[in-house]
């Protein structure tokens, strides 16, 4: 794991939490939207909070896709769940909301889960082919089963991950 990869995971965490908060704030200002008045949903996008929220959620999606391109799903999801903790801490210390003992217990459990997964490898290495991505990438594996990771990466880049 490089610093850049930790940064991508931090991006997944922060952008999701910030985007949800902005959307929530914006939709409170916009008010209720019913099926009879569905056009107001389009007007909601003009609200600055909603607009910033959408931009942040797009940034979350880009970071999420980036993380999944080099890490396992079962690594990315728990590792990026610190966003829940972040939201609770913001609610307690920035918005001065009451956080019940049950919620503190939830924060402790999530932190424990993140600690568990953070200590392990980020991607599954299949011994038959050398890397997780090339396991599903026949073009990269033909004749390269014994090649090093750098060579396999070059082959994968050249073929675009296609057979």
């Amino acid at each position, binding site marked *: 794991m490089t610093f850049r990869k930790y940064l991508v995971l931090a991006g997944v965490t922060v952008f999701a939490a910030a985007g949800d908060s902005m959307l929530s704030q914006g939709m409170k200002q916009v008010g209720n939207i019913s099926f009879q008045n569905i056009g107001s949903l389009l007007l909601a996008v003009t609200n600055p909070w909603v607009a910033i929220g959408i931009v942040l959620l797009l940034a979350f999606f880009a970071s999420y896709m980036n993380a999944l391109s080099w890490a396992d*799903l079962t690594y990315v999801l728990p590792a990026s*769940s610190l966003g*829940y903790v972040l939201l609770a801490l913001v609610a307690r210390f920035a918005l001065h909301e009451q956080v019940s003992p049950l919620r503190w217990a939830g*924060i402790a459990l*999530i932190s424990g889960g993140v600690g568990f997964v953070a200590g392990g490898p980020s991607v599954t290495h299949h011994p038959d082919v050398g890397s*997780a991505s090339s396991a*599903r990438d026949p073009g990269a594996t033909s004749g390269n089963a014994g090649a090093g990771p750098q060579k396999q990466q070059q082959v994968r880049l050249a073929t*675009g*991950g296609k057979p």
Partner: protein
Amino acid sequence: MRHLYTWCGILLVVSFSVVGDVTMSRAMKQVGDLHALRRRFGIGTVVCRIFSNSTFFVAVAAMALSFFSLLFSLSWGDVSLVGPAAASLTFIGNAFAAKLFLREKVDRRRWMAALLVAGGVALLAG
């Protein structure tokens, strides 16, 4: 009857969400490391490769269906039940699906992480 609808809705949310996450993971593994691709070929090539991958569109469709299922579930059941139940079960479902369909090595450490996070989310949102 309403209770049954709520749990059917939760099941739909979890199913679509798991399908979305697993197919997105598969699509991104097929595309390759985005950072390395961008450095070598530029951002245009990365965007082209993502949008020429059919699995990516399946993932986006499943995620959209998951979102709309969540909206419908919230109209049937309380947010205090639907939110935590859907989020927690999605973590567990993803661990099973990743092991089955993505051949990820879900060892004891990752099972513990999925269970702890699922429990934590349930407590936070409860």
